[in-house]
């Protein structure tokens, strides 16, 4: 049997594939890369594309939307992204998060009003209760 290399394809949300292959072909940032067992340690980014595993004349394909590829002599690890990543998309998400925080700070006033109203209500209820108790006392 031909020499094989262990392959793990994982994303942050789940493990996609774990097993062996004779050859791993992935689209790295600087071009397609084919990995045979005993490859030198290498670390690179992946473009959106397929990761193909060849084993016993059969081919398995996985689509990744980008990520990182780590190669060690006996292990290949694909750290797949779950989402399309681009600098401007990330930036937009960051701005959204900041705005949400500002909104929360603005809402603070209305929440304070709510707390105040709740306190007033509790006070009124307590008064009412003591009045009721006094009335009952008179009756008895």
């Amino acid at each position: 049997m031909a020499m094989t290399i262990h392959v793990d394809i994982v994303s942050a949300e789940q493990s996609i594939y774990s097993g062996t292959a004779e050859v791993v072909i992935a689209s790295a940032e600087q071009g397609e890369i084919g990995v045979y067992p005993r490859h030198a340690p290498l670390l690179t980014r992946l473009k959106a594309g397929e990761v193909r595993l060849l084993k016993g004349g059969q081919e398995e394909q996985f689509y990744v939307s980008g990520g990182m590829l780590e190669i060690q002599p006996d292990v290949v690890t694909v750290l797949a992204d779950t989402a399309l990543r681009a600098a401007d998309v990330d930036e937009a998400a960051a701005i959204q998060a900041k705005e949400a925080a500002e909104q929360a700070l603005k809402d603070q006033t209305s929440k304070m009003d709510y707390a105040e109203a709740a306190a007033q209500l509790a006070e009124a209820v307590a008064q009412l209760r003591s009045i009721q108790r006094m009335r009952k006392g008179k009756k008895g």
Partner: protein
Amino acid sequence: MASGKEIRTQISSIKSTQKITSAMEMVAASKMRKAQDRMAATRPYSEKIYGVIQHLAHARPEYKHPYLQDRIEATRVGYIVISSDRGLCGGLNNNLFKALLSDIKDKRNKGIEIDVCTIGQKASNFFSRLPVNLVAQKAQLGDAPKLQDLIGTVKVMLDAYTEGRIDSLYLVYNEFVNTMTQEQKVLRLIPVKPETPDELLKYPWDYIYEPDAKDVLDDLLVRYIESLVYQAVVENFACEQASRMIAMKNASDNAGNIIDDLQLVYNKARQAAITQEISEIVAGAAAV
């Protein structure tokens, strides 16, 4: 003594409360199981990426990434706080906030300023009322949180670190130990401090980087931190469900106890009424 009818309405209202709490308990139990599966599913990625980071930190690359370097003096630190979106989950959130507040107090006493970024509605409500600098927030992640939803919040803090506005970043969340126990955790995210396995020190080696070490490392470290935050979110969700399950179980048990007590009072009141009626009849008959 309250009349029979009053007690009966009280019992029925407590019974319907009990129905709600026991339903919530069952829902939380099933959600917790799913969340535990999700926790297990996220583990391989963070383990793998941590392995790579460990290698990197000791492989002596020609480029030292700022996330891997300690800053000498911290004047401002950042916290990412993870809480649940909804309440009725026991003291889960409050215990976490208490642990964090004592940490913040320590830092303040040393003259260190605080930036807070919240994930989850409860943390957002809590910290927007406190005099801390709330820089980013994200809420309503739902039952199956997506990494995509966290990228923005994490980026705000990472940018703050890169630009020197904060000198270290901490992650605050509940760790899922088991169904009964959740532990509050304050974990330092950056500077990253990987442990040193002995075998790595014996045979130093380095990767081939494509295109170059800086680009690859930048991406890798950002992903590493995102995966840690994501895992914490998933874990915190499992904690929330476990905690809710326990809280609702206690509520259902308490409702049962109250119903038992009330039933006793009701029976007594009923018996007293009957006795009174009989004695009235007997007295009436005697008078005739």
